[in-house]
């Protein structure tokens, strides 16, 4: 776990992770015209990072993404989603769709829905990977003697 897995796994992971991340971003961005959405895309993003963690071990991974950065992304995503709601509140009604709905079936349509999807995607991706990281770096029995 600490040192990571074999060279084969590492090489494949290097190749595959970028594609998983790309697919996750696609699922998040196209949630309002095709199946998917912020939550599914966020889970895919976090699954890609979990693959990195399993293949390269926790020291290597935490050099790329630190735990505090994950907490910040998590809170920032939640705040962004709340901001969409509050801007709507200032514009008239809580959660009103204040952007124009645009032409259907396009990427830039449906008003605030893509914005909400992006916020949820960032939040869920960072948060679930953070939980997995916290479970992975949790070492049992280290402070048993303190009791």
């Amino acid at each position, binding site marked *: 776990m600490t040192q990571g897995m074999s060279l084969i796994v590492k090489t494949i992971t290097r190749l595959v992770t970028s594609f998983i991340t790309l697919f996750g971003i696609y699922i998040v961005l196209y949630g309002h015209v095709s*199946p998917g959405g912020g939550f599914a895309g966020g889970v895919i993003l976090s699954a890609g990072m979990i693959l990195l963690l399993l293949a390269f071990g926790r020291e290597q991974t935490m050099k790329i993404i630190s735990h505090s950065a994950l907490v910040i992304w998590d809170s920032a995503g939640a705040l962004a989603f709340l901001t969409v709601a509050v801007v709507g509140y200032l514009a008239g009604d809580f959660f009103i769709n204040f952007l124009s709905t645009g032409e259907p079936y396009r990427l830039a349509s449906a008003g605030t829905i893509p914005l909400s999807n992006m916020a949820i995607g960032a939040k869920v991706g960072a948060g*679930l990977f953070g*939980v997995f990281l916290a479970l992975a770096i949790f070492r049992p029995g280290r402070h048993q003697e303190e009791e």
Partner: protein
Amino acid sequence: MTLGALPYILALVLMLIGLYVVVAKKNIIKIILGVCILEYAVNLFLLLLGYRHGGAAPIRTAEQADTSAFAAGAVDPIPQALILTSIVIGLGCLALMVSLAVRLHEKFGTFDMTRIRELKG
């Protein structure tokens, strides 16, 4: 018993199996898995409620220009939205339960509920 209720009853059987695991098993991980099974069964039940015979997915493409024809043929989107929310809630509960199980294993050295009760105090 009509055939129209058969899928509902099978979902109910799945629910009761989950409930049985939660109530009768003594292992923490087994209990967590029982909650998972129960959650899947309730999600399945909601999904079955929303289906209509021959229904298409409630996702429109540019070819389906006729709104009334689409509205008469698509499945109910509300249960799907409810299930998405419920899946997320289940995942949150699972993360919390798993971290509690890890902590309990660290403190007591076992996943057995009966031994955890004996060790207390």
